[in-house]
């Protein structure tokens, strides 16, 4: 039987964000926005959902007097992503 896919990751934008964050140490909100071509509002909502599930950490700070939002994947997020990839492979076979 196929494993159930994580509903939190099985959506285009959240999966794109997690795929980027799993490949880098940390990324700024603006970087994620550029790479995913998402709107700021939509991206904020989806990041919050990932944060609520403890898949990512969001750090807000100021750099050169400008607000900066840094996102980083957590070990829980990494594990969830690995499980998702494992599950999705079974669907593709």
């Amino acid at each position, binding site marked *: 039987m196929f494993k159930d896919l994580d509903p939190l990751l099985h*959506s285009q934008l959240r999966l794109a964000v997690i*795929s980027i964050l799993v490949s880098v140490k940390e*990324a*700024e909100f603006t*970087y994620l926005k550029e*790479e995913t071509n998402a709107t700021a509002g939509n991206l904020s909502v989806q990041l919050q959902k990932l944060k609520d599930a403890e898949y990512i950490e969001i750090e807000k700070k100021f*750099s050169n007097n400008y607000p900066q939002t840094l996102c980083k994947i957590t070990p829980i997020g990494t594990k969830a992503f690995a499980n998702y990839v494992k599950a999705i492979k079974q669907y*593709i076979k």
Partner: protein
Amino acid sequence: MEEREIDANQSFELINKMVNQAQNKLTENGFLLLFWGWLVFITALVFYCLISAESSYASLAWVTMPFGGIFTAVYVMKKNKTEKVKSFSNDYVGYVSIAFTISMFIVLTQTNKLQLNCYPIIILLYAIMTFIIGGIIRFKPLIICALVSFVLAFAAFYFEFKVQILLIALSVLVSYILPGHLLMRKFKSQSNV
């Protein structure tokens, strides 16, 4: 990109695309390679001229190095603050650069104890550093240019001191300046996409 459900194949394609996009994006712009390349190149040539003129102040030419070090530290700190993404490769490049600096310091300060001319070893350190960094950032020209520096390091053992100075200049021309320009061009073309 919108918030919508996708099928398994689309998911897999999306993961591949995003991971490749993030991992293949160059975060090094080649500026420091060019900075150090030109600094060492010019310093080595000035040193060569002073040695040829039998100046007793020839070794003073290398005082540019600590200033280069200070400039690099300030540049890296500023760059870290403004970068939109921090990749793991940035960390690895940082560690390799620190190891290189420490090794260079040890070699330069212990030349007498080594009982040999340190220049071939310096060229060897340049080659090792550029080879590893080329591998980390997956930039083949840097790896190829580093291989040329390995050959220069080997050859340097067979030449007299004055020729070794010119080989240092040639080494940074090949393994820093040339790939530095190529890296900067690739970085700029990537930024314009």
